[in-house]
């Protein structure tokens, strides 16, 4: 059924959209069979009281809300928002994205060529509020009417009131910032950026965002050292644990370098790897040791956690964390920083934060992917691809491919080491997001995970099943390679929600695990066929 929601409906009272099973994008076999996926649930009444559920019934902004009770209170909230919006339009406060912001507000032709690029819009059954241009058009109309003072005839209808503010804040957390829509724009404007700009306005002016991203994310990262709450001492303990694990699993006695001055580069992993998938940083340690590569990890505060959630919502938090990363490298006299398997950490430090470093903070930053391919290409380690003789497909993290241009090294590794490697479609720079981008993978409160699993990650489930359709039988073990911690987080939850390992014997892991698994001198397989 065609969604009749209009732009100006955002300012009306009541829930805008109710998601329905029958509208969702159909999934391939076996998920097109009856009762193969859990149903939508209703938000609890207490959630409706305390949070904003009027967008689609789901909650991303998980700090309590006190609704305005008088007209004056409502006007005060609107005024605060507009003051922030004006700051967004000044070069002092917002040089960071002023030009792309204004170009996007100015020039959209509203042709909607971008709409069908969006996996969330498609997966939801084309719900209007998820259309890439929806939130952008709301902001554009506010800009024209309330900042530039134009009439409805010029701006289009919009009312800036509490409902608009509340739903605008919420709808800015229904886009993964994958920027697939931007590839299709004939004018070249940036819908994904506007999503981030709305988040940024609320964060930098009013001080809130999703709690896991801001308070438990960047704030905790800067204070404790990691968004996982891992402390420097805890990090050192984990490194010791990894050394023991490596020895137990491979028989190799490896001393993982930590705080070694003068190494060629500082390797920074997403700290989530140490806690959830320690086999990934351990695999890096094995490969780099075997290949004789000079590197070090850092135990400096922030320096051992490569994530940078600022990239999703706040320029200052982004800059603070990025500068802590470069400082950690500087203290160890490293020539550069190499980012492990984490897509947003790649983009944050190598691309976005490239314009917040200067002089002594300008330590060069790069991806781990070329080094990994170099190890295979130059035969620095003996590999036997037959050890990886099972179906493998690759999920491309958007941040690594579309937003950074690191596309080939990782698939060259897979082509060389995995005889049954097959691409999913589309792939590379035209891939679909895992559905966990822009913070979604770590947003676990209340009913948001349900929305993520049913809507946001739906396309990735479809792509994965399609890639393995010739071997979907559960008697055949299959592996999805996701060289990114956040993607793995989203995929882990999606696999659990849909019981993918149980129903199809499809598992997921990072890239380096395939490399270690293929090492000739390893007696036991490194990849374990278990879901965690």
């Amino acid at each position, binding site marked *: 059924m065609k969604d009749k929601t209009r*732009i100006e409906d955002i300012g009306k009272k009541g829930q805008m959209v109710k998601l329905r099973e029958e509208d969702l994008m159909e999934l391939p076999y076996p998920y097109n069979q009856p009762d193969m996926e859990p149903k939508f649930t209703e938000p609890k009444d207490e959630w409706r009281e305390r949070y904003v559920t009027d967008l689609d019934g789901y909650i991303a902004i998980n*700090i309590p*809300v*006190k609704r*305005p009770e008088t007209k004056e*209170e409502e006007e005060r909230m609107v005024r605060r928002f507009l003051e*922030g919006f004006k*700051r967004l339009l000044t*070069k*002092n*406060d917002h*040089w960071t994205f*002023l*030009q*792309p912001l*204004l*170009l996007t507000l*100015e020039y959209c*032709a*509203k*042709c*909607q060529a971008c709409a069908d*690029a969006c996996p969330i819009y498609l997966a939801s059954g084309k719900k209007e509020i998820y259309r890439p241009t929806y939130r952008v*058009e709301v902001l554009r109309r506010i800009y024209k009417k309330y900042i530039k003072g134009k009439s*409805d*005839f010029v*701006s*289009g209808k919009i009312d800036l009131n509490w409902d608009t503010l509340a739903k605008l804040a919420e709808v800015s957390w229904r886009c993964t910032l994958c920027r697939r829509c931007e*590839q299709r*724009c004939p004018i*070249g*404007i*940036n819908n994904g*950026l506007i999503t981030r700009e709305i988040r940024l306005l609320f*964060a*930098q002016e*009013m*001080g809130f965002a999703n709690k896991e991203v801001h308070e438990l994310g960047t*704030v905790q990262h800067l204070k404790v050292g990691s968004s996982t709450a891992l402390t420097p001492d805890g990090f050192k303990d984990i490194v010791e644990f990894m050394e023991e694990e490596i020895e137990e699993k491979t028989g190799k006695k490896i001393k993982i370098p930590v705080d070694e001055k003068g190494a060629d580069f500082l390797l920074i992993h997403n700290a989530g790897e140490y806690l959830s998938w320690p086999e990934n940083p351990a695999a890096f340690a094995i490969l780099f040791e075997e290949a004789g590569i000079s590197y070090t990890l850092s135990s400096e505060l922030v320096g051992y956690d490569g994530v940078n959630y600022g990239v999703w919502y706040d*320029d*200052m938090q982004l*800059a*603070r964390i990025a500068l802590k990363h470069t400082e950690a490298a500087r203290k160890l006299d490293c020539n*550069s920083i190499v980012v492990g398997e984490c897509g947003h950490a790649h983009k944050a430090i190598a691309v*976005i934060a490239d*314009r*917040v470093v*200067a*002089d002594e903070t*300008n330590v060069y930053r790069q*991806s781990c992917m*070329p080094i990994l391919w*170099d190890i295979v290409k130059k035969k620095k380690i003996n590999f036997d691809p037959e050890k990886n003789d099972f179906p493998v497909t690759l999920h491309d993290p958007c941040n690594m491919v*579309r*937003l950074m*241009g*690191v*596309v080939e090294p990782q698939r060259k590794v897979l082509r060389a080491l995995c005889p049954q490697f097959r691409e999913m479609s589309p792939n*590379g*720079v035209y891939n679909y997001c895992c559905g966990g981008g822009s913070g979604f993978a770590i947003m676990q409160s209340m009913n948001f995970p349900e929305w993520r699993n049913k809507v946001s990650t739906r396309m990735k489930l479809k792509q994965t099943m399609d890639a393995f359709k010739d071997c979907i039988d559960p008697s055949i073990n299959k592996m999805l390679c996701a060289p990114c911690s956040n993607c793995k987080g989203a995929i882990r939850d999606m696999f659990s929600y849909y019981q993918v390992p149980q129903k199809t014997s499809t598992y997921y892991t990072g890239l380096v695990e395939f490399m270690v698994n293929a090492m000739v001198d390893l007696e036991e397989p490194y990849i374990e066929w278990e879901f965690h």
Partner: protein
Amino acid sequence: MVVSLLQLSSYVAFAIFIVAVLAKWRQWSSMPIHLRWELYPVPHEPEHEHGGSYFEEFNFWEKHREKNHLNEMKELFTELLFIKRVFDFKRQFWFTTYPFHLGIYLILAWFALLFVGGLTQAYTGIAIPSAHPWAQLIYYLTLLTGSLGIILGTLGCIGVLLYRLSEEDMRKYSAGLDYFNLIFILVVYVLGAISWLSFDRTFTTAQAYMTAMVSFSSAIPQLNNIILAHVILLELLWIYIPFTKMSHFVGKYFTYHKVLWEDEPNLRGSEVEKKVREVLGYKVTWQAPHFTAGRTWAEEATKPSKVDVIERWEP
């Protein structure tokens, strides 16, 4: 007297158009450097075929950086001349918007040919039309571009207008001004078409008008009311366009070259680093609790910051 005023108004309209477009260009080009927001494939990257960048090279800063400018131009002109992305991703709409835009390009070419023809007549003494090969070339090209431009532009404009009105996805997102702009253009086209078909099929009057313009002569041909209305509305359109989103022909350069394809690395000692140093000196006034009043970006990003967080969103 009316005709002289008309001539003057044509000069003024054209001058305003040029000045306003240049001002627009200056406005976009004088903006401060921004954080990188490129999107791959970036066509000047040598590995653009698969969407690759220099980040695919280990220690990329040690390597000589190559840029494929030819491919960038190819991509630019493919988009500009054929509106490729609309063709690829919104095919039905392309069948209206492409003739519309092609019509505009042809009319611009027609203007340029009238201009060249005007110069030819005014300063070489070669009459257009005449048996002179150059005059023949200009004459027939003018005829071709003008006729095709009017036909395609008028039909395309009607098509775009109807499409915007009939397709719900576009209609919901369109404001009154979007329709006004299209109707304005359509009126100019329709008056132009009537003038052409009824009074000036070989563009002789148009050529004579342009000749008078380039020679600053008052020997302007007599214009009937239809042609007069067409010229006046066309002048108003020229004045109006740079102040609307129809100036996206300017913006499009910046959206691509300064945002989507802008991947210049911040190498030590580079011009980029110099600009970054400058913007990091800007003072910040954001009001959230994790900001401190009076600091510059560099200070705010490096000095110890408050870690207060908002417990509740309230009035």
